[in-house]
């Protein structure tokens, strides 16, 4: 356990990094996922293969890239290829983990990053799928990292951009999506969620240090059952914090 203070983002990065297994591959988007993947590689998962959608494969990332197309994403990479190549190998099953962000999530882990309000008369227009729909369709396990509140944890999405478990068990396969894929974990500033096998809806697996189940529920507009016993996320270790500062020396993301 850490005896030093840490930011909420540092905790999220550590929790996300620890989910990644060594000798697996991960499809990485902009921001926190990059930090999490880099942290995992520098701790328990040195054999983690990092892949970026613009074509960077297996880079030795010198400093935190700003964009997934940034030259840092193919710095001393094993290949600097193309989106077609990377998306194809993802579709063909080479990608184990994928990270996603979300503006809204529903109990089945479906995600909205397109629009708040009506599509053709938006209240807030968001960027759209980007590679999210692809990552959420192709990767064996997706991990969603987001801030949670009652609006973001929505019983009903304004727009279903990226498939989670759709409307329940078997729904992804019925829709034609690759088998045995879908959201694996959701990580927020309050805790970590998994999915109940019988209903494919979110359940609380762990709260972060100092967070209560009541707080979690107060920040969701749908009911969230809690696992028993409920785990508590381990705080960032001194070593993890040291590496995070190495990865993001200016605190661009970590200090947010």
């Amino acid at each position, binding site marked *: 356990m850490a005896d030093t203070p840490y930011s909420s983002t540092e905790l999220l990065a550590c929790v996300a990094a620890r989910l990644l297994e060594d000798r697996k591959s991960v499809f990485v988007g902009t921001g926190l996922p990059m930090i999490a993947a880099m942290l995992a590689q520098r701790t328990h998962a040195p054999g983690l293969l990092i892949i970026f959608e613009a074509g960077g494969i297996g880079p030795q990332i010198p400093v935190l890239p700003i964009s997934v197309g940034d030259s840092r994403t193919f710095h001393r990479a094993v290949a600097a290829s193309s989106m077609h190549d990377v*998306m194809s190998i993802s579709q063909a099953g080479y990608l184990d983990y994928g990270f996603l962000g979300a503006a809204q999530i529903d109990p089945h882990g479906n995600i909205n990053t*397109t629009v708040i309000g009506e599509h053709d008369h938006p209240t807030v*227009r968001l960027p*759209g799928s980007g590679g999210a*729909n*692809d990552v959420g369709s192709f990767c064996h396990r997706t991990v969603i990292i987001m801030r949670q509140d009652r609006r973001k944890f929505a019983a009903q999405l304004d*727009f279903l951009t990226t498939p989670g478990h759709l409307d329940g068990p078997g729904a992804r396969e019925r829709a034609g999506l690759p088998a045995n894929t879908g959201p694996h974990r959701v990580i927020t500033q309050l805790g970590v969620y998994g999915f109940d096998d019988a209903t494919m809806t979110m359940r609380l697996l762990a709260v972060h240090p100092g967070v209560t189940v009541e707080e979690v529920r107060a920040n969701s507009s749908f009911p969230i059952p809690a696992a028993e016993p409920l785990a508590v996320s381990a705080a960032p270790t001194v070593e993890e914090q040291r590496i995070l500062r190495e990865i993001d020396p200016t605190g661009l993301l970590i200090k947010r």
Partner: protein
Amino acid sequence: MEILQEGHGELIGWHDPDENREWVRAHKPRDLVDKRMGIAEAVARFMHDGDFIASGGFGHVRVGMAAIYEIIRQGRRGLVMAGKTAVHDADLLIAAGCVDRIEVAYSFGHELRGLSPASRRMVEGGHCQVVAEISNAGYQWRFLAAAMGVPFIPARNLLGTDTLKYSSAKVVADPWSGKPLCLLPACYPDVAIIHVTRCDMYGNAQIDGTLIEDFELARAARRLILTTEEIIPEAQIRAEPWRTAIPFFLVDAVTEVPFGSHPCQMPLRYYFDEDHIREWMRRSVTAEGADAYFQEYVFDAPDFEAYLQKIGGSTRLSYLQQVEALRG
């Protein structure tokens, strides 16, 4: 083919493959002709009001910004844009009133830097219409279908989502597995702008770094304007022909524009100009601010050279080179 589901997004840029073959037959150059011209001439000749356009690169990486500024300078109107991780380029073109319709994979955002004040305002205010939704891979494969001259490419994304409902894709049962499959229609932009590391005067081009979507986009576009960091002798191309990502017969115009991606990154050459991107994002919070930005950097700059002086000239540019080389 029984259609199990059908998106109701507008079918942008699709042509019957035979119709496009006739277009290719009539318009694409088979022989080596010198295609060098200024960016003003390239945009004037090859991009017309109402065209469906696509811009190469990805996000703020390797974007033909000199061409984007020139489109604004020439006041093109009614353009439809491929929102294929279109970021700074789309934001400016929408804010300037050049683009009023867009098919979106990723737009209206500057990735980590935040949402785009200008283009969001235009979309939320009804001045720019999102005519279809798609994903990054989906757009990529629409270009692949066009590059291959086939009407569609099958894929296993979009399925089960509203993205599909608002797309131009269709769902059918795969005749082998019986499983539902998404068909992505071919997409042929009227004009694409691609910024490359180097090319010869005919348009044979090399790209250092990832190709992103540009291999396929170059082959999908009906007209292709190349902007390039430098023009090199043909012999240099022919010495390593496996480095050619774009061969000349796809290319209609070649424009040499050093730093032509600024304020976006040019891999291995210069870094993002974060200050300038932030300046745009700050000033474009209001329509008046955006207009003032355009006045200062586009209309009051007769050409890209003048723009580069305004953003800080060689001092600023060599700083960006240093940062990109990890010496910054």
